[in-house]
């Protein structure tokens, strides 16, 4: 067997899985988004760009198009919440990762193990537990009222804050793990050197630590931002459904709105946003590597 053929054979399973499980469904989705909606769900095999027109325009009864910002507002809300959740996760995750990386090696293994424990329980169950804790008659409000701190229950559940909290809670490990990997490789003698040279703690963080852990920072941010953008469980259970997000909007199209092409088009828009995020970060990474001469 030639080495070339061996390589081909070796990557064949990967290609097959990517092809069957990713490329084919995406082609079906793209095709559906360009067809006509059938009356009871599904599509009719006629070409139509209506789904993409609907993203920006509302078609009136007389067939005239008027600009309709509804879907862009919903998309922007999802982007904003995903961005905020990423930022908070970063602020929470960095100290945790730093703390773990600065422990003796045998403690680190245990701490990392602790970080992965939440994954043992199903996401839905974990999120629903937060409903029980945060609601008006839940744990926190019961304790607050019993302690005489408030008379009326504090509104914690069914707010944007609750959605953010749920997202941060769910995705924090995805930020901690890559950050830890970068921090673990960090030569802490460099930090000591900076301090010896009269650099303050913030200066050392900004000029020494952050540039060196940037790959972990970028990887963690992507790992959190991308799933947050399409998150369904937290907005649905903790947000109380008072505002549509891109994920709930897509779900609606495949159920009671009976508009599969529009649902497929929305899913493709979401996909494009994710691809854009990944491409931008990849290009920047490549440029930084080229300039840094590593």
């Amino acid at each position, binding site marked *: 067997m030639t080495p070339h053929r061996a390589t081909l054979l070796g990557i064949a399973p990967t290609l097959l899985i990517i092809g069957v499980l990713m490329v084919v469904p995406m082609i079906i989705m793209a095709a559906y988004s360009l067809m006509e909606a059938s009356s009871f769900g599904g599509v009719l095999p006629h070409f139509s760009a209506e789904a993409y027109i609907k993203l920006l325009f509302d078609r009136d009864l007389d067939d005239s198009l008027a600009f309709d910002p*509804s879907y862009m507002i919903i998309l922007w809300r999802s982007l904003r919440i995903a961005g905020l959740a990423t930022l908070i996760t970063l602020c929470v995750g960095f100290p945790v990762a730093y703390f773990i990386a600065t422990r003796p090696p045998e403690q680190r293994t245990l701490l990392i193990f602790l970080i992965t424990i939440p994954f043992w329980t199903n996401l839905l169950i974990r999120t629903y537990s937060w409903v029980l804790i945060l609601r008006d008659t839940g744990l926190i409000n019961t304790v607050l009222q019993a302690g005489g701190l408030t008379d009326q229950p504090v509104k914690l559940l069914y707010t944007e804050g609750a959605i953010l909290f749920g997202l941060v809670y769910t995705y924090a490990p995805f930020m901690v793990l890559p950050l830890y990997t970068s921090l673990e490789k960090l030569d802490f003698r460099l930090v000591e050197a900076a301090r010896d040279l009269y650099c303050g703690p913030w200066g050392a963080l900004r000029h020494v630590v952050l540039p060196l852990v940037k790959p972990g920072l970028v990887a963690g941010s992507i790992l959190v931002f991308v799933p947050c953008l399409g998150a369904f469980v937290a907005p649905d259970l903790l947000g*109380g*459904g008072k505002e*549509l997000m891109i994920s709930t909007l897509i779900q609606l199209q495949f159920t009671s709105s009976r*508009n599969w092409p529009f649902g497929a088009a929305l899913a493709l828009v979401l996909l494009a946003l994710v691809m854009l995020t990944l491409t931008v970060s990849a290009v920047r990474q490549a440029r930084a590597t080229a300039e840094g001469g590593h």
Partner: protein
Amino acid sequence: MKRLTAALSLAVLTATAGPAAAGEELFIYNWSDYTAPEILAKFEQETGIKVTLDVYDSNETLLAKLKAGNAAYDIVVPSHNFVPILIKDGLLQPIDAPKLGNYANIDDRWRNPEWDPGNRYTVPWMWGTTSFAVDTAVYKGPTDSAALLFTPPPELRGNIGMFKTPEEVTAVAAIALGLPQCDDAPKDLKKVEDLLAAQKPAVKIYSSEGIHERLASGEVAMHMIWNGAAKRARDVRPTITYVYPKEGVLAFMDSLAVPKTARNYKNALTFIDFMLKPENIAIQSNFARYSNGIKGSQAFLSPDLRDAPEINPPAGVKTVFQPVCSDQAVKLRDRVWTRLFQ
């Protein structure tokens, strides 16, 4: 959970299957968590026909399965609004229910329904209503109007749960406004939108899951709900009252039918006739906690279900069955929903 129950019922079935007479079989395709295991066991024992149960979660799934043409189910249980679609698409075969031995047991009210004139294709299975329930410990006033839900008094504001299914919410709003179902007049849908938008600041949550639990725990004091679920909420919190609004109540009926592709037509008719007996359909009602359309089944209901106000609407209440809406009506409904939650 539902799937688990279905799997368990299947396991029970297989375990209790009696001596099947000469390989006689019956394939039932019903909603999940909607078939009493006891009734299937009883049917197998009486007839020797071996029953296999498969489940679905929406009328659309059922339609797609039957349209695909290769599903060999003998009994299906479509909702009233999908019966005309299945008939029109030629997916059902006539059963001529009036010729069945127990047809006379069907309550006059459910004979000859608008979705199947003359009961040529279907007989009633279970029916229920969609309205709302209120905790009378929080609100003391009268509970007879849909206005209570849509323009709530101060003590209920911020304490309300609504469904998050556009078809049910807009249907109930249309009844409250005295508008026809599946309206496709934009000016009418604007009224629906205004009503829901004015109510929105008073709503705490839009969700179609965990409803009776939310009411029972006191998390909300008023919630859109199905009558069966309201009964369950009242079991935990006795001050919960299910409201039959004077404007009318949204109702649904699921019916037994035989698909064109059925392989055991005769057994299917045997099953349908079997389910028209009051003592049999009562077992099903006790399991699903919904009303049936069979005279004399009251005597066989569990006492607490028989006397429940939730499943015994007051006399003179107007029931509204929502048909399947036109594409145009769905489009308008969708627009109302998007504007409401953008």
